[in-house]
């Protein structure tokens, strides 16, 4: 019997243009290149210097999200970009896309949004594709059974010019999540638990495949939340085998194949899975039934604890430094910490179902005095759908700010920041020192936990508010 192959190995093998040798890496073909304004200007400059064209502009999808403002406006023309640097970056993006023939979902496009929200929304992220972007959270698209990973700007230029990358094949890691998730516990809690378990470097050099009953039971948006944070465990990528849930999500979206081509694609996609006898280089198992809402207490996403559990202690200098920065006391639960800011949004948790989870907690309740809460839809489409469902009114009635789409407070480079010393409960992906602003203290959590914390004015267990 031949040795089985993992899903990752199948997708990899399907894209090898030139196989790797001891002396040279593989030439790997890229099916979808997502680009945004912050990590591309130097790549386009390199193309210009060498007089090169973009090889496959139609396989390139562009938007603007990182340095764009999210302040509410009645027309996109009123969006005031914060800072001359950001404004220049945005102008260059528009010019580069125009000059090189790339479709840009820019200001004024009803499809603009965070790059990892709009790729799936448009149906461009599909099973079996290789997908890259100059952004580490490209792992998000692995939720569709694609091999999707972040690259640097030099590699962005490689893909623009040749539609290929030079890559060594990573190893494989199976993360099995068995059992049923208890009520009030979400995909965010699963992935935070996994990162806590394997560590922020636990996935280095590996592609993770998330498997098991609890993963199968998740909808596509929840699967995207899981795959999104693969990079926070250091993994090159994270993916989930496509199934009926995947197909249902993709059906009817603008960029999926049409007619007979759709049927052919579906049958190819449903055949994409790890063989029963496939061997992973490593595997880890988690029982979903035992999970609870999770929050971070330190300055990386692996420093995570159950919302009611005591913050652990350790003697090493890096650990102590993190606790000192966070002003968190070991032995006490995170629920003892008062909250200044709550942020619901980002490529991790800025989709419709995330906003619905937050709205379910906020309905008929108020954001506590002294707490600023921002709700930032992941895309203009998410914004439109949420408004159709009246979620914006729920947020406004509770005293939260309803914003335009963008990366916003996930990273302090677009005007949305957390002030020094303030504690922010955030549905984003990184609690690094200063990530949300100089001196900002970030607690990562699910949308439900974030909303509950906004209501209570301190870090809170959402199960007590349902």
């Amino acid at each position, binding site marked *: 019997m031949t040795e089985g192959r993992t899903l990752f190995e199948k997708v990899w093998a399907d894209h090898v243009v030139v196989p790797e040798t001891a002396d040279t890496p593989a*030439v790997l073909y890229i099916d979808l290149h997502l680009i945004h304004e912050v990590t591309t200007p130097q790549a386009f400059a390199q193309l210009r210097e060498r007089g090169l064209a973009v090889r496959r502009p139609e396989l390139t999808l562009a938007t603007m999200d990182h340095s764009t403002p999210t302040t509410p406006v009645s027309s996109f023309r009123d969006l005031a970009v914060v800072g001359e*640097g950001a404004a220049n970056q945005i102008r260059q993006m528009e010019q580069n896309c125009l000059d090189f023939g790339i479709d840009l979902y820019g200001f004024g496009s009803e499809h603009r949004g965070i790059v990892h929200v709009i790729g799936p929304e448009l149906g461009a992220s599909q099973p079996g594709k290789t997908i890259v972007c100059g952004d*580490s959270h490209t792992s998000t698209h692995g939720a569709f059974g694609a091999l999707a990973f972040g690259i*640097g700007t030099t590699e962005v230029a490689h893909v623009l010019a040749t539609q290929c990358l030079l890559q060594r094949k990573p190893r494989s890691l199976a993360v099995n999540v068995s059992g049923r998730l208890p009520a009030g516990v979400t995909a965010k809690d699963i992935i935070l638990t996994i990162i806590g378990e394997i560590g922020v470097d636990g996935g280095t050099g590996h592609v993770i495949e998330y498997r098991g009953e609890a993963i199968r039971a998740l909808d596509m948006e929840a699967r995207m939340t899981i795959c999104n944070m693969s990079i926070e465990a250091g993994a090159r990528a994270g993916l989930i085998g496509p199934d009926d849930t995947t197909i249902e999500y993709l059906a009817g979206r603008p960029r999926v194949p049409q007619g007979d081509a759709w049927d052919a694609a579906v049958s190819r996609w449903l055949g994409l899975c790890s063989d029963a006898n496939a061997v992973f280089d490593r595997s880890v198992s988690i029982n979903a039934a035992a999970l609870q809402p999770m929050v971070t207490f330190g300055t990386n996403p692996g420093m995570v604890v159950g919302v009611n559990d005591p913050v652990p202690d350790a003697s090493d200098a890096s650990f102590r430094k993190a606790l000192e920065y966070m002003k968190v006391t070991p032995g006490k639960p995170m629920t003892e910490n008062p909250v200044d800011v709550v942020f619901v949004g980002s490529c991790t948790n800025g989709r419709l179902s995330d906003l619905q989870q937050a709205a379910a907690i906020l309905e008929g309740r108020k954001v506590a005095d002294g707490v600023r809460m921002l709700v930032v839809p992941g895309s203009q489409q998410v914004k439109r759908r949420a408004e159709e469902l009246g979620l914006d009114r729920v947020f406004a009635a509770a005293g939260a700010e309803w914003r335009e789409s963008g990366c916003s407070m996930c990273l302090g*480079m677009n005007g949305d920041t957390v002030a020094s010393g303030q504690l922010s409960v955030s549905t984003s992906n990184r609690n690094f020192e200063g990530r949300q602003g100089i001196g900002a203290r970030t607690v990562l959590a699910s949308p439900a936990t974030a909303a509950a914390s906004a209501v209570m004015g301190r870090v809170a267990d959402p199960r007590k508010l349902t």
Partner: protein
Amino acid sequence: MDALTTLQSRTVVLPTRDIDTDQIIPARFLTTTTREGLGQALFHDLRYDRDGTERPEFPLNDPASRGAAILVAGNNFGCGSSREHAPWALLDYGIRAVISTEFADIFRNNSLKNGLLPIIVDVDTHQWLIGHPGVELHVDVEASELHLPDGRVVEYPIDAFARYCLTQGIDQLGYLQQQSDAIKRFEEARPWKP
């Protein structure tokens, strides 16, 4: 990219583990459209107080560390964001090699494409280097060897292709362009089109 065949320098030591690329260069400095001039933003919020004065306790601000081209850092250096601004900032500041027990994948890739050498060493060597800040090291890039002042020679792992590009100063885009016939054949032969 400048070729890097040998390197001789004192070290500067940052023992903290999991130093992420937001520490190396905070996001607010990414609104640039060039690769140059990012050295002043390197480790900005660790290096400077809010009023812009240098924090004397930060190792890079130690007068004895000025000019050091080798950074010794804690485990899992460069984790987080894919920003290539991190190696650009390190290089612009004058760092040519970083020594750690492990590097995040994207940071390592980005570094090698810009002539910044990531050197992975065993825990014992790492501990020794952390305990002896400012020692003079010699790196033989062609041989993938780190020469310690006490005469020890530590071989470090590096991808053969990356080493070749580094020592010859070759940029990989040129190599990829030479594959254009194979790329065209691949595109034509695919059973499905993206």
